[in-house]
C-alpha cells in the first residue's frame, strides 16, 4: 500500500510488493484503492489545498517537449499552481548532480528528498516526468519524507504515489483545475 512516509528503507517502500498495481484505464489509484478519477482528483486537490507548502514538479515532457499538447499542459500547470496556491519547482534534468542540487530551484529524481526537506513540502504533484524517473523518485520520497505525493501521468500511472491519475492529457488537467476550484470554495479558501 502506498502509505504516507517516511517509511524508512527496510522494507523498501515498493507498492507492488504489497500487491498494489497501476490502476486500469478510466480509473485512478488512491493509496491502495481503485477509485473513480473524480474522487481521486477531489482528494488530490484537498491535499494540495490543506497541506503545507504544496508544490508542483513539472518534468521534461512539459518543459521541453516540442508539441502542442506540451504547450497547452504548460499553461494549464501555471493555472493549476495559481488555483492551488502551489509553488512550481522543475525537474528539468535527470542527471545526478555533484555535490548536490540547489533545492530551492530544482528537484532531481536521484535525491528528491533534498528539495522536499529544504522547502518543507507536505504535498506535491508530479507531472511530465518520464515514468521511470517518477517511480524512482516517488519511492525515495516515501522512504524519506512525509510528503503526500500525487502523480498526473499521461500513460499508465504510478502506484508508489499516494494518488495516481493515469492518461492525463490537457482536457484532464482542465477538469482537475475545475474540481480544484470547487474544493477550494468548499474549504472556504
Amino acid at each position: 500500500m502506498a502509505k504516507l512516509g517516511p517509511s524508512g528503507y527496510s522494507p523498501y517502500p515498493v507498492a507492488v510488493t504489497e500487491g498494489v498495481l497501476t490502476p486500469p484505464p478510466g480509473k485512478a489509484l488512491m493509496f491502495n484503492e481503485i477509485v473513480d478519477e473524480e474522487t481521486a482528483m477531489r482528494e488530490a486537490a484537498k491535499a494540495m489545498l490543506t497541506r503545507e507548502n504544496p508544490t508542483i514538479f513539472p518534468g521534461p515532457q512539459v518543459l521541453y517537449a516540442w508539441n502542442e499538447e506540451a504547450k497547452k499542459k504548460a499553461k494549464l500547470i501555471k493555472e493549476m499552481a495559481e488555483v492551488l496556491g502551489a509553488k512550481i519547482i522543475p525537474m528539468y534534468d535527470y542527471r545526478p548532480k555533484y555535490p548536490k542540487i540547489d533545492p530551492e530551484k530544482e528537484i532531481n529524481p536521484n535525491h528528491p528528498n533534498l528539495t522536499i526537506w529544504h522547502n518543507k513540502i507536505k504535498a506535491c504533484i508530479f507531472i511530465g516526468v518520464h515514468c521511470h524517473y517518477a517511480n524512482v523518485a516517488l519511492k525515495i520520497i516515501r522512504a524519506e519524507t512525509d510528503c503526500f505525493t500525487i502523480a498526473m501521468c499521461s500513460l499508465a500511472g504510478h502506484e508508489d504515489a499516494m494518488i495516481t491519475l493515469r492518461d492525463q492529457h490537457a482536457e484532464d488537467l482542465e477538469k482537475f483545475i475545475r474540481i480544484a476550484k470547487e474544493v477550494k470554495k468548499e474549504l472556504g479558501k
Partner: protein
Amino acid sequence: MSQQVKTEKVRYNRMGQKIVSPDYLLFEAPRTKHFITGSEAVKEAAKRASVDASISYPITPQSEAAHMLGELWREGYIGVYFRGESEFGVMSEIAGCAMAGARTITTTSGPGTLRAMELFPMWAGSRLPIQLVLMARGINSPLSIQPDNLEMYFLLDTGCMVWHAETAQELFDMIIAGFVVAEQPDVHVPVITAIDGFFISHTREAVYLPPDDIALPPYDPYKAPMPPIDMEMPPGRFMRDPFVMKSNYISYATHASWQFEVRAAIERAKPYAKHYLRGLVEHFGDPEGEVLFIASGTAAAQAKEATQILIHEEGVKARVLRIKTIRPFPTEEVREAVKGAKYVFVPEFNVIGWLEREVKRALYGHTDIPIFGTPRVGGGMTMPPEYIVQEVLKIIGKEVKHVG
C-alpha cells in the same frame, strides 16, 4: 436522421504488411497449419512483429534462428541486421538500437548467454524492451550443446522478464506477446523468451500461423519510461547515458530505488502477460490430483505424459501446473494449485533445480506438503515419462511396474 459514416485509417509497416492490433494477431486472425521447427517459428514470429533491428552471433543451437532473422532482413521484414563481434558485442549493440527507439530481437544460447551477462541487467536498468530468444543448452565446463537449461537460472534476477515456452507453437505466440507486454509503458523491461534447445529449436511440429501480410503495430519509443535518444529531443540527448558516466555521484537511495523499480516493473507485467499468454500458468490432468507436478518448458511436456500414465495405467490421480512465466513468477497461482495436493514434484532439465527453489520460496509458510525436486536430469539427458512415473511411485510408496 443523419447517417454516420465510419472511417478507418489503415496503416502499413515498412514491408507493406497491414498493421493490426495485438489481440487480432494473437487471438482472432485465421490461422493455417505449418510443419516447422522452433527456429522457423522464431522467424515466423519476427516476420509478423514489425521488427526494426536484429543482431546475431553464432552459437549452437540458436545459430539457425539467428540466420533466419538475417533472411528476414534480406527479404525486407527487418530494418537492420548484422553479425556482432561476440555475444557481448551483440547485446551491447542491440541496446544501442533499443535506446534509439528500435524494436529489437536477438538470440543466444548457453555459454554465449554468460559471455553477455553484464548487459542483461544493463538492459533492464536502462528500461529497454529488447527481446532475447534463449535456446537453452547448458553451461561449460564440461562442454554441453545438449538441451539443458542451467543458464536460465543465471537470468532470473537480471531484471528481465523470463518466459519459458513448451512448444514451437507457444514460442511463436510468446515472441509476439513478448513485444507487446515488454513495451507497455509501465513495464518496459526486456523479455527473455526461452525454450529448451534442440527439443524445440530443431524438431518439427504443427504450428498454426496467422497470415504473413499482417503485423504488430510499430514500437512507439515516445511512450517509454525514459527519454529515447533522439538528437532532436533534448531530454534524451543529455539524459540517458550520463547516469552511467556519473555513477560515483549516485546516492545509495537512487541505486536501491532504481533496482526496486525494475523489479516492480516486472510485477506490473502480470495483468498484461495474463491476457496475452492466456494465463501465467496452464493446468493439465485431474483437477483433484494428489500428485502435482510443477514444471516449465519441456519438463512440463514430459510431466504431462507421465500424468497420463499415472492416471490411466497406475490409478494415481495426478495433474500438472505448467508455469509459463518464471519472471514474473506466478506466486498466487502456485499457492492456489497446491491446495488438495499431497505431493509436489518439480521435474527439471538442469542439475541445480532452479524451479524447485522458486516453488519452495513461493510456498514457504503456505503449505506443509512435501516438495520433491525430482526427477532432475542434466547435460542434455532425456527424461522419459516412464522415468518420472517410476520416481513418483517410489516416493508415494506404490509398486513400480514401469521401467525395470
